[in-house]
Structures are given as C-alpha cells and as structure tokens.
C-alpha cells in the first residue's frame, strides 16, 4: 500500500529498498548513514519480504558480498559514506567489469581523510568519473529531497538491471539526516526469475555461467572496453534526468545538485526579487550529465555559476558541456558548511554583474 510518512532520508532509502523488492543489503556502520542499516535491522525485512540484511566486517567485505549476490542475478545493495566508499572502489570496478547490476548509496561527508561527519559534495569526481581502476562509469543519481531518496532506490535498481551496470545514489549527510514527508510506494514483490547470465547453478539446458572481469587477450579486452563505452553512450542518449527552474527568461544560470540545489532554489527567488533574472538547472543524473541542455542554454546566458559543497568538481563538467560558449564560475563551501541563499546571490553579482557594470 502507498503510504505517507515523516522520515529521515537514510530511513527512506532503507524502507524504499524493502519496498523495491531488494533481495539483500550488506553494509558497515559509518556516520552519517548508519540509520540505513539500523532501520533495516529494526524492520526485520526477512520476515516482511525475505530480504537478507547483514552487517559485514568492513566496507570491502560488504561490496564483495554485493558482488556475489549481484552475480546470482539478485537485487542487492550497500550504503556507506565517503571513507567507506573509498574502500569499495576495487569491488565497484570488478562489478562494473563483470557487468553486474547493483545499487550503492554514498551519503557524502567532508574529506579528505577522516574529514568531518558533516555534509559535503566532495566525492563528485570519484562518483562520476569511475572511482576505481579501469575505464568504467557508474550510473549516478542525485536526489534533492527525502522523496527522491526513496524514489531513486527503485530507479537505481531499474537502471542498474537495464544496463547491467552498478548505480550509485550520491547524496550527502544533510539529506540523509533531514526529516521530510515522503510517499512510499506500494511494495513490489521480490523477483522469482533471474537473468539468464546469473550463477544460479548450471542446469542441463544451458551452458555454465561465468561471472568474471578477467580477459587475458588484449584484443578481446579492448573490444570489451569499447562495448562498455557504447553502453555509457547509450545512457547519455537515453537516461539524462534534470530539472529546470525559472530558466525560460534566465540571463544567469545556477547549476547545482542535491542539497546545494535546494539552497539555490531559494537563491533564484532572492535574485529575482532583486531584479536579476536567474534560473536553476538541477541535474538529477550526474552520470550521464545533462550536457545537451546546458549546451543549448549556453548561447542565451551571460554567465553560469556552479554551486557545490566542494572546491569545484562538477564545474569541470559544466565547462566541458558549454565548451567556452559562456563564462562559467564556481562557488563552493567546504568542511560541512552549507552556503546560504543570499551568499550565493552576492557571489553571482560579484562574479558576473558588478564586473559588467564597471567593465
């Protein structure tokens, strides 16, 4: 049954996983996302749907449990926060290299190192450029509300299975911890039939299934790399998701995702009250990145400000997308600090408008 609840983002992810018909979750505690595992353990999903939940000995073990489960064609997932996600990179590379579907949630905190437990968006590069070794990409979804935290679980699994590729929900400690209303979907039953490539035991009617990322022949490895690239191009073609707010007459554009996008939405309002025509582009998929729409909008704009809780990572993708057609600047706060709406407006004025008055 569809249900309206007040929940933390992390809890919404956990509940959505049960309702998405997930077969297993493997995780290791780390702030600010431990509620995912805690909620799942408290809910006894094994009794509700038969879903398996296991606290692993490390993030490395957890991602490799995900690998084993995914290789059986099951809907499996893990969640962690930045330091733990770093530990998962080898496993993610194997999962991508073996073309397996799975869902990974990164509730980002500030770094580098142990950093801070406060929210940040400083794992953007790691998430969208591959993260581990070898040429591969994750499908990266960026929720901006507790509702989207829940919705993207189902979407993440769907895309992961469609492309046989790991998907990641890239969110942050603010969205993980904040409470909002959330409509929870009608529960889906768990799968009863598994993809034909799954290692479920070799029956006489088929060849044995082998899940591996090893290819000792250079020619065949290169062919496989090209096959992966074709898959990523198809994602860029078909799976780009974004939201535009007040962009029709915009002279300036803010580009922001997740928590930053929520703040920027307010900045748009403040700026417009001050007579500046500002719009917001909010990528909902970070890979594939909404390059096309940015390129289309670029000639009509006087400037783009990429707003991120990092020293400037997504800004590089914005620049690549517009390829010099319009000036692109970055504004970021670090260390767990979330920028304020009027702070962003003053930066926009500072970087583009004042300069135009005097220059």
């Amino acid at each position, binding site marked *: 049954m569809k249900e309206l609840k007040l929940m933390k983002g992390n809890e919404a992810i956990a509940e959505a996983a049960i309702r998405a018909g997930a077969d297993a979750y493997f995780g290791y505690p780390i702030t600010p996302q431990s509620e995912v595992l805690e909620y799942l353990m408290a809910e006894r999903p094994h009794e509700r749907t038969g879903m398996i939940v296991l606290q692993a000995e490390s993030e*490395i073990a957890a991602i490799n449990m995900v690998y084993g489960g995914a290789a059986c064609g099951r809907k499996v997932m893990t969640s962690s926060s930045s330091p733990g996600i770093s530990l998962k990179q080898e496993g993610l590379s194997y999962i991508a290299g073996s073309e397996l579907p799975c869902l990974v949630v990164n509730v980002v905190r500030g770094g580098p190192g142990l950093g801070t437990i406060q929210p940040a968006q400083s794992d953007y590069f790691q998430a969208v450029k591959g993260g581990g070794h070898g040429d591969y990409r994750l499908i990266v979804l960026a929720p901006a509300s507790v509702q989207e935290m829940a919705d993207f679980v189902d979407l993440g699994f769907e895309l992961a299975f469609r492309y046989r590729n790991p998907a990641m929900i890239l969110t942050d400690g603010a969205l993980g911890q904040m409470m909002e209303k959330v409509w929870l979907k009608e529960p889906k039953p768990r799968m009863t039939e598994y993809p034909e490539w799954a290692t479920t035991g070799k029956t006489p009617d088929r060849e044995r299934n082998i899940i591996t990322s090893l290819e000792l022949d250079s020619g065949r490895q290169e062919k496989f790399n090209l096959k992966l690239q074709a898959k990523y191009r198809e994602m860029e073609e078909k799976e780009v998701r974004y939201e535009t707010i007040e962009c029709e007459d915009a002279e300036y554009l803010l580009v922001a995702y997740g928590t930053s996008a929520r703040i920027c939405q307010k900045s748009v309002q403040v700026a417009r009250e001050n007579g500046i025509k500002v719009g917001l582009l909010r990528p909902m998929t970070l890979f594939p990145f909404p390059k096309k729409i940015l390129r289309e909008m670029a000639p009509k704009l006087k400037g783009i400000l990429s707003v991120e809780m990092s020293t400037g990572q997504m800004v590089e993708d914005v620049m690549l997308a517009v390829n010099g057609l319009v000036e692109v600047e970055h504004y970021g706060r670090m260390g767990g600090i979330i920028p304020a709406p009027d702070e962003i407006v003053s930066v926009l004025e500072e970087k583009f408008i004042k300069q135009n008055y005097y220059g």
Partner: protein
Amino acid sequence: MAENLKTENIISTRNLVYKKSSILTDNVMHYCPGCGHGTAHRLIAEVIEEMDIQAETIGITPVGCAVLMYNYLDIDMQEAAHGRAPALATAVKRLMPDKYVFTYQGDGDLAAIGTAETIHACNRGEDFTIFFINNGIYGMTGGQMAPTTIPNMKSSTSPYGRDVEMMGNPLKITELVAQLPGTYYVTRQAVHTAGAVRRAKKAIRKAFENQSLKKGLSLVEIVSNCNSGWKMEPVEANRWMEENMFQYYPPGDIKVDGKILST
C-alpha cells in the same frame, strides 16, 4: 579364452577403473606440470559428479594461479577480487541456502589480503566450503613470499630465506580458524601420493556434505607444491614438501563435527 583377450573386450565398461569426471571440461589446464592445483580441481569435480550436484553448485575462484578454474569445471562460477571470495560466497549462500557453495583460494589470497574475510566468514559460521591450497608461495605473481612461507624458505622477496625476525612468522591460519565457533570441519590434506589423494577426496566430500547440515563452515587445506616457484623438479618438490612443509603444516583432521581433536 583367446576370444576374451581381444582389445574390444578389454576396453569395456565392465573393466573401467578410471574415467575423466564429467564435471571437468576439455580445456587444457594451464598449470605447471607437477603442480597440485590440477589434482585438487579433479577431486572437486569428481565429488560434484558423484554427489550429482552440478546444478546446485556455485564456485568462487580466487586471484592467484587458480583464477581460471572456471575454464576447467563445468559449473556456474564467479571470479572474486583478490582475497574476497569468502565475502562473495557469504552472499551467494545466504541468497541461495539450498545450493552448494565453495571458494577455492591460495595462501596469499586467503591468509594475507583476505584474512579478514576468511576469519569473519568462518566465525559467522557461513554454511559453505573453503578449499585452501597452501603452497607456501605466491605462484601466480612469480614466487614471492607468502604468509605461509616457512622459516628460512627462499622466495623472490625472501631471497636469503624467510628471516622470521625481520619478516615475521608464517601464519597457521587453519589452526586459527579451527578455534572459531563457526567452523564445523577443519582438515589439512595433501594430493602428492595416491594415498593422500584418496584421503583428500574423502575430506572434500565430507566438506560438501556438511553444507546440508547447516552447522557451519568447512575448510579443507591442501598442502601443495609449487615446483616452479620453489625452483625444484616436481619429484624433488614433493619430497621437499613432505620433509619441510609437513613439519610446519602436519596433514590430518584438526576439527571434526564441530570438535577440535586433541593432538
């Protein structure tokens, strides 16, 4: 009488004493001549065939010489990252509790990089089987020191012999995991003589059969040679193994039916 001695009468099913297991594929094994991996593969294949569990078995290969084991066994297999096979197997067995699940790992894979996964899978009492090939060396990467390299043994990264003062002691991980409440059967075997092969096969069968009891993890260590890595002829390698490796890693059962055997 003369009639009976014709070739076609001798080559008959009635007189068959040995045949290649139907679980072994026709692919030519890449192992060095004299290496124990091939024999261990064969025994696992024979047990799967005899128990008639091909459709119920999922194997996890390591990173190490046995990485390509999936080319030789006609069963569904997954290839793990170095050391992580017990994590994969944990998920596979929990998601499909009625299947037979095994990992096959070298000493570097199981007792160095994968120590945490090994110990925790054993301690949780996961109902799968670990086959642990201990050749005291990193075979695949060209003969470097392993966690199980015995004192004074030479390798490419202990060229003057393992100096335990400097490089630390060999790890008897099999004795270690036998202490954990989650292990049900822990045994050390070898495959270098006909007798050893027979005993090893019995152990492999018992380890598989234990899975249906759901009483915990079974680990079968197979002390094996690595004549290439040890820089010895195969026969010499086996002799050296008996005289040196067996001192440190004595073959025999360590824990049976959940009880540690007193030595």
